[in-house]
């Protein structure tokens, strides 16, 4: 489709992880005032190349399915305005790093969620649906710490940005460890010991080198770096208490 008016020059990484069909395609996309990177990708699929694959769902930054690498940085594309990331009228868009590519811009997120589960990432109850909801002081330090990390949309931006994940495939990664930290601070959680055990294992929190790309890039402004430091302290304290 010929475009009149201002345009963007967009390079899109195509293909699958097996590498057989990897290539970069170039497109010219009409530019608009309110335009997100997801809109650019959508325009290409709808108007220029019907075979382009990408993933999105909510389109407002809640589901964390639309993350891609944009001009070298992992971002949620539905909430990334083009003007914020464009360089010299150019966009380069690829799949997230550190995860297998299914096709084009869609990655397989299973390893990310497998690690989420492996880091002990789910609540173990201390009460049932027949018990009243317990009172929790919203100012209790544990609750404050847990609240600070709980609103993760599991978008994998941090995971894709972490060089430790890139170098060490066993490393659980920032998001899973951030969730583990919220569980350690969950006053209702029955298995704090279990969480501290798994995050002390070979893929655990001690592999983190505080590189901080996770905290710098989390679109929800969470701070996995500090959460992981919290886990390091908690496990160290426990080691010295000899339990």
């Amino acid at each position, binding site marked *: 489709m010929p475009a009149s008016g201002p345009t963007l020059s967009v390079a899109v*990484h195509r293909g699958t992880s097996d590498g057989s069909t990897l290539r970069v395609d170039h497109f010219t996309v009409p530019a608009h005032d309110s335009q997100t990177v997801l809109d650019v990708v959508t325009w290409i699929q709808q108007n220029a190349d019907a075979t382009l694959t990408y993933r999105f769902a909510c389109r407002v930054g809640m589901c964390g399915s639309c993350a891609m*690498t944009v*001009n*070298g*940085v*992992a971002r949620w594309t539905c909430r990334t305005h083009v003007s914020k990331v464009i360089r010299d009228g150019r966009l*380069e868009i*690829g799949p997230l*790093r550190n995860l297998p590519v299914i096709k084009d811009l869609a990655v397989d997120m299973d390893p990310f969620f497998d690690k989420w589960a492996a880091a002990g990432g789910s609540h173990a109850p201390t009460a049932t649906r027949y018990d009243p909801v317990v009172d929790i002081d919203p100012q209790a330090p544990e609750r404050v710490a847990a609240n600070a990390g709980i609103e993760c949309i599991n978008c994998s931006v941090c995971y894709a*940005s972490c*060089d430790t994940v890139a170098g060490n495939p066993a490393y659980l990664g920032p998001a899973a460890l951030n969730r583990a930290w919220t569980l350690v601070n969950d006053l209702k959680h029955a298995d704090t010991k279990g969480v501290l055990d798994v995050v002390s294992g070979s893929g655990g929190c001690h592999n983190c*080198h*505080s*590189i*901080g*790309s996770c*905290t*710098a*890039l989390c679109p929800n402004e969470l*701070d996995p*770096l*500090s959460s992981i*430091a*919290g886990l*390091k*302290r908690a496990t*160290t304290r426990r080691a010295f208490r000899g339990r």
Partner: protein
Amino acid sequence: MRLAQRSQPLWLAHVLHRLSGLGLALFLPLHFYVLGMAMSQPERLDGFLHWSEAPMVKLAEFGLVFLLAVHLFGGLRLLVLEFLPWPAPHKTLAAGAVAGAALVSGLFLLNAV
């Protein structure tokens, strides 16, 4: 694609710390070896130390102290980050560490020349 996320200060601090650690680890055996000469062949040690007057060797020496200083302050930064539950201004900490390292190695350089 160039990984632009790597231009953030904490990433640079990490790489600097790693490279300095690696440099130290590679240099250390050499350093020990040279000092070990004091036991068997003190004259060769002296010979070696004479070289150290040479500009090249001076530069290398300065480099080592620099590495040690960088690694020391980088390491202190990490230890503070991990063991003291300080809130977020990690970047300031990183900058401070670099400044400290520059100070020490600068001092050393001044003394050496």
